[in-house]
C-alpha cells in the first residue's frame, strides 16, 4: 500500500458558467515532488486553491495530510505550507516581521519561532536581509522569503504555485535547489504547479499534465516521454511532400505535419531512421531543406495530447492585468 499525502477524487470547480476543473483525480505520494504541468488557465491555481482550503470545490473530494479540505479545513491548514503564485508577503513589513507574524498566526512559541526564523532564513540564504523591508527586495528574494515563511511552522506538505514564474535564470536554479533539498533532506512532500517543462523535468518525481480543467496524462517524466516513442525527427522539405511514403519506415510510431512543408516523424530510434528517410526521399525525388532529430520533451508530450504548444500563452485580458500587477509587485 502506497502512503499518499494528497488524494484528489473527481474534483469539479465551477465559477458561474465557467468550468475550471472538470473532475480531476490524482494522488501525491508521501515524500515526492509532484508536478501539475499545464498552460495558463488550465486549472492549476484553482486546484491549489482548493487543496489549500482557500476556495471550496463545487463537487468531488480532496484529502490533504489525512484530512478532508471541506470538512476539516483547520486541520489541513496546520499541516501545509503554501507559496501562492502572486506574492502574499506584507510589503510594508521587514522580512523578519513577516516571518514573525506568520509564526504568531500559527501559534508558535516565541522561543521556537526565533529559532525557526533563523534556521529558515539561513536555508534560503537571506539572513543578511532580515531587517529589510520586503518591498525593497528583488523578485527572487521575495520568493525565497515566501518559501522560508511557508516552511516556518514545519509543514508536512508544501504547495508551490508557479514557484519560479517571472524570475531570472539564476534565481530559478537557486529555487530549484531549495526544492530538491526540501525533498531529500527534510522529507517534505511537495506539490508544485508550473508551465515550464524544464522545471517539471528537473524537479518532479511524477507529473500530471493538466489542460482545460482535465488531467490528460500522469506519470514520471520518463514514462510520459516514452509514450511518444523515444525520438522525434523534424524535416523541412523544399516542396510539399506526399506524407504517405513515410508510413513504410521501420519502427515509425506517428507522422504529424507541423506546417505545409514541415513534418514531425516519431520513431523508435532516430539514428537508424535517418538513413532510411534519406533513402526514401532519394527514391521518390523529394528534396530535404533541413533535418534534425531530438529526444521528446514534455512539451512534445503536451502537443501530442492536446494539439497545442505548452508554452503558448493563451492570455486573457485578466491574465494581462495580472502580469502587469506582478511586475509591479515583484
Amino acid at each position, binding site marked *: 500500500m502506497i502512503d499518499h499525502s494528497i488524494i484528489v477524487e473527481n474534483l469539479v470547480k465551477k465559477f458561474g458558467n465557467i468550468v475550471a476543473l472538470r473532475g480531476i483525480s490524482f494522488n501525491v505520494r508521501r515524500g515526492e515532488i509532484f508536478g501539475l504541468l499545464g498552460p495558463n488557465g488550465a486549472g492549476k491555481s484553482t486546484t491549489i486553491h482548493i487543496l489549500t*482550503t482557500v476556495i471550496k470545490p463545487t463537487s468531488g473530494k480532496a484529502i490533504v495530510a489525512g484530512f478532508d479540505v471541506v470538512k476539516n479545513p483547520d486541520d489541513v491548514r496546520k499541516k501545509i505550507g503554501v507559496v501562492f503564485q502572486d506574492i502574499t508577503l506584507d510589503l510594508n513589513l521587514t522580512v523578519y516581521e513577516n516571518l514573525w507574524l506568520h509564526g504568531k498566526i500559527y501559534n508558535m512559541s516565541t522561543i521556537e519561532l526565533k529559532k525557526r526564523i533563523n534556521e529558515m532564513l539561513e536555508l534560503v540564504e537571506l539572513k543578511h536581509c532580515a531587517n529589510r523591508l520586503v518591498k525593497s527586495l528583488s523578485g527572487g528574494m521575495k520568493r525565497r522569503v515566501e518559501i522560508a515563511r511557508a516552511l516556518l511552522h514545519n509543514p508536512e506538505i508544501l504547495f508551490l504555485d508557479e514557484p519560479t514564474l517571472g524570475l531570472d535564470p539564476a534565481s530559478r536554479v537557486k529555487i530549484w535547489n531549495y526544492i530538491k533539498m526540501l525533498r531529500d533532506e527534510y522529507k517534505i512532500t511537495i506539490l508544485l504547479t508550473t508551465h515550464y517543462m524544464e522545471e517539471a523535468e528537473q524537479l518532479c518525481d511524477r507529473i500530471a499534465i493538466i489542460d482545460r480543467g482535465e488531467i490528460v496524462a500522469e506519470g514520471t517524466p520518463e514514462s510520459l516521454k516514452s509514450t511518444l516513442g523515444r525520438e522525434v525527427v523534424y524535416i523541412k522539405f523544399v516542396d510539399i511532400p506526399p506524407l504517405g511514403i513515410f508510413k513504410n519506415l521501420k519502427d515509425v510510431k506517428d507522422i504529424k505535419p507541423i506546417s505545409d512543408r514541415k513534418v514531425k516523424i516519431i520513431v523508435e530510434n532516430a539514428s537508424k531512421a535517418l538513413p532510411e528517410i534519406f533513402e526514401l526521399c532519394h527514391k521518390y525525388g523529394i528534396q530535404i531543406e533541413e533535418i534534425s532529430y531530438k529526444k521528446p520533451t514534455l512539451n512534445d508530450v503536451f502537443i501530442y495530447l492536446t494539439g497545442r504548444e505548452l508554452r503558448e500563452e493563451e492570455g486573457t485580458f485578466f491574465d494581462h492585468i495580472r502580469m502587469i500587477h506582478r511586475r509591479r509587485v515583484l
Partner: protein
Amino acid sequence: MKSIYNSLSIISAIALRQIKRFFRARARAISTILMPIMWLVLFGVGFSTTFRTLPFRQILGTSYLSFLVPGIVCMTMFTSSFMAGVSVIWDRQFGFLKEVLVAPASRTCIIVGRIIGDVSTALIQASIIMILGLVMTGYLNYVNIPLALLYCILIGIVGAGLGTIIALVVNSFETFQALVSFIVLPLNFLSNIFYPLKYMPTWFKILTLLNPITYSTDALRTLLINYTSIGLGVDSLVLIIFAIAMISICTILFRRTTVE
C-alpha cells in the same frame, strides 16, 4: 486557558501589524494626525469667534470651542477607524489576505486583531486632539480623560467594524472611496458633533439618535465638559450593542471571504 492565550497571541500579532503599517506609511500617518488638528483649529476658532456674539454660554453653559472638542474627538475616532478598514481591500489586492486565509487561525481573532490595531492608531489621534483641546480651551475635565478614551475605543470599534464590513463587501478601492463620502459625511453631520440635540427638528433628531456617534459624543461631553443630553448609561449600552454587532457581522463576512 491555552486556547485563550493562543487567541490573544494571534490578536496582538495582527493588531501590531496594523499599527506598524500605519506608521510605515509616514505621509499618511502625518496627514491623518494633522487633519483633525486642522479641523479643530480652523473650524473651531472660526465658529467660536462667529458665535461669540450669540448667547452660546447661556444656552450651553460653555463656549462653542469646548462644546466642539469632544465632538471632533469622536469624529476623528470614527472616521479614521472607518478609513483603516480599507486595508482589507489592499490586503486582498496585494495578496496578503491569502496568507491569512490559509492559516489555521480563527477568523474571529484575525478580525478582532485588525479592529484593535485600527482603533489603536485612531486612539493616538484622538488623544492628541484631546490634549490640544485642553490647551486651547483650558476647560476640559482632564481627570476623566482615561474614561473618555474608553468611549473613544467603543466608537472606534464601531467605525473600524463598519469600514471593514464595507471593504469586505465592495472589494474595490474605488467603490470604497465613493462610499466614504456617502457614509462618513452624513454620519458626522447627522449627529450632535456640531450642534446640540436640544434644538434639532424632530425628524433630524430621530436620525441623529440612530447614529452611534451621537452617543459617544454625549458620553465625552458628559465626562469632559459636564454637558449631558442623553446620559452615560444609555450611551454605554448603545455603544456596546453597536460594537458587538459590528464585530459579529465582520466575523460572519470574513468567514465567507475567499479569493477570486
